[in-house]
């Protein structure tokens, strides 16, 4: 039996080299699937069909299994994020302190529901299960920057700042 040859990189985009690096570091072992998907998402912002196919082929994992893993875990996204992302924490402490009002305010302002991106690809609205900043609930993340004791007004102000950029 001939030795396994990993498929060529999908394009000359340098980010594929980073993805390949993760797989090589793990000896192209099947169990590196989640690690590799993390690298794809942190490099490209999301996972598209080409990426999933490439990773599945490289690690000799059935495509169905790779797709199954991607859709099982909440952290992985199949859609490209907007230029900015506002994430409202929906953990218990945040819920007790009225995170639902923050979500409602953002939904109304942006005209989208959590998980979606505005038509102009500017802003994505997300909710998180818990970011672990419970002592400052309710919490939002503006492009991964944590803000605590947030009011609906503060959410709207942030969205406004992004909208006029």
């Amino acid at each position, binding site marked *: 039996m001939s030795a396994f040859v990993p498929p060529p990189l999908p394009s000359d985009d340098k980010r594929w080299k980073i993805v390949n690096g993760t797989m090589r570091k793990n000896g192209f072992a*099947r*169990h*590196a*699937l*989640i*690690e590799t*998907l*993390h690298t794809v998402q942190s490099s490209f912002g999301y996972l598209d069909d080409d990426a999933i196919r490439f990773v599945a082929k490289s690690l000799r*994992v059935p495509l169905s*299994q790779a797709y*199954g*893993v991607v859709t*099982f*875990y*909440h*952290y*992985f996204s199949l859609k490209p994020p907007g230029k900015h992302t506002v994430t409202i924490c*929906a*953990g*218990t*402490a945040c*819920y*007790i*302190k009225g995170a639902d009002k923050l979500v409602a305010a953002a939904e109304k302002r942006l005209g989208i529901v959590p998980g979606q991106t505005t038509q102009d690809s500017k802003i994505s609205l997300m909710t*998180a*299960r*818990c*970011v*672990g*900043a*419970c*002592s*400052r*609930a309710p*919490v939002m993340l503006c492009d991964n*920057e*944590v*803000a*605590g004791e947030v009011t609906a007004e503060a959410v709207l102000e942030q969205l406004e700042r992004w909208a006029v950029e």
Partner: protein
Amino acid sequence: MTIEELEQIQESVKAENAKYDYEVNVCMDLACASQGAEKLREALVKAVEASGKTVLVRRTGCMGPCSSGPLVRVDPEATLYHHVKSANAEAIVSSLGGEPVPELQCDLNEHFDKQVRVVLENAGNIDPEKIDDYISRDGYKALLTALIEMTPSGVIHRITESGLRGRGGGGYPTGLKWSTVAKAGGDMKYVVCNGDEGDPGAFMDRSVMEGDPHRVLEGMAIAAYAVGASKGFIYVRAEYPVAVARLTTAIREARRRGLLGSNIGGTTFSFDVEIRLGAGAFVCGEETALIASIEGRRGTPKPRPPYPAVSGLWGKPTLLNNVETYANIAPIMRNGGKWFANMGSERSKGTKVFALTGKITHTGLIEVPLGIKLWEIIEVIGGGVPGGHKLKAIQTGGPSGGCIPADMMGLGVSYDALMAAGSIMGSGGMIVMDDTSCMVNVARFFVEFCMTESCGKCIPCRAGTAQMYTLLTRICDGTGTMEDLELLEEICSTVKEASLCGLGQTAPNPVLSTLKYFRNEYIEHIVHKRCLAGVCNMQVPAEVLA
């Protein structure tokens, strides 16, 4: 690295620190960081340079009372400053050697007096990115002493003697788990640390991994020696990027010092650790699901037995403990099992870290001896419910736990007492609710969480939680009937009895505990179409009631 070399490092850190007249410790944990702690630290460094004083400005892990952040502690006087802004940096530095800055000083003596710090003994005292800081506080001494002076069974004996129980929530005796893995045959075994902390409203493990990462590594290495493993994995939530970064640094530093890797301490023992990222699945807190995830698969649980202790990661005997469990190991090894067993209550020994949040004055991280009364936590350590509101309930154990009503605050916090009250210890989330919280809505919140997080493998959990959610939504909307309530209770018992893993088996707990203590609120919603807390939007028009 030998014990003598460790002691040399300890001495050199002490000598280095002695060069400074003062130490200014800045809490850089998430809560303080989100309020400008990094800028504050920079301002302090600048102010120190300008003053010409010899002051060490140190970044530390969580000091505890997050609601008072950003926090700064000046040593050797141990003066604690709260709500510190960059603009206060000069005042703090110029006060060194004189009187403290009165307007920044805070009196949290009551908050700290009832606490006992074992797991958090270094938090707020060391720079988490410096291995020498950890070594200076007796770090890795327990590991080297165990390797050189003790047998693996001696280590297990000490852990068993301590009475330590799993801090992830289950409360399984740690010594017993270790001895099962130690007895399992085979030349390859694994030690795994669960740092997935999926329980919403809890951040103890994040703070430990970020504030004192070497403590986790040392605990894992001691465990590996005891059970005969040579390879470890830390499974960390991807949502905790700082914890991942700190652990990565810690592993690199420990390898460089020869405290991880081959022939540790000049012995034949070799052990190394790798990080694996979680990807957002609450079910991965279940041990077989977590193992599947490390193997790169969907995190669905498997029926047990076989238990991971016999057949775990890649079919090999695997020891799986939570972050806080490993964090307790080094102090137990240093101070003895009896020392640990002297703290706590009859069947719940030692201390427990809780994330105290919700409607409480002092939110943050606390560590208390088990057996402590709930009212002591709420009234004394937490400073009570703010805003003139009345305490309604305390939620422990997250989506697997329950709500303990205000009239049961005399309850001592232990695994058994919380279980008897219809909740569980859980990993340590403690969410305080006041009269503005609707308990039916709270139950619906947790059921929605479990419904979303159900992996879908077994039907009772997958379909049951969805039906529970539908019924609870109806009750919250004011369209529920008494028959719905009856059906809800029936489904709860089915899901509890018939689900495959802990997620489903405990998913009904928030419903059952609120039904037990707050049944009147359910009745109010169903019969009178009223939500007394004013949380639920009733869909029923007033004329229906007329």
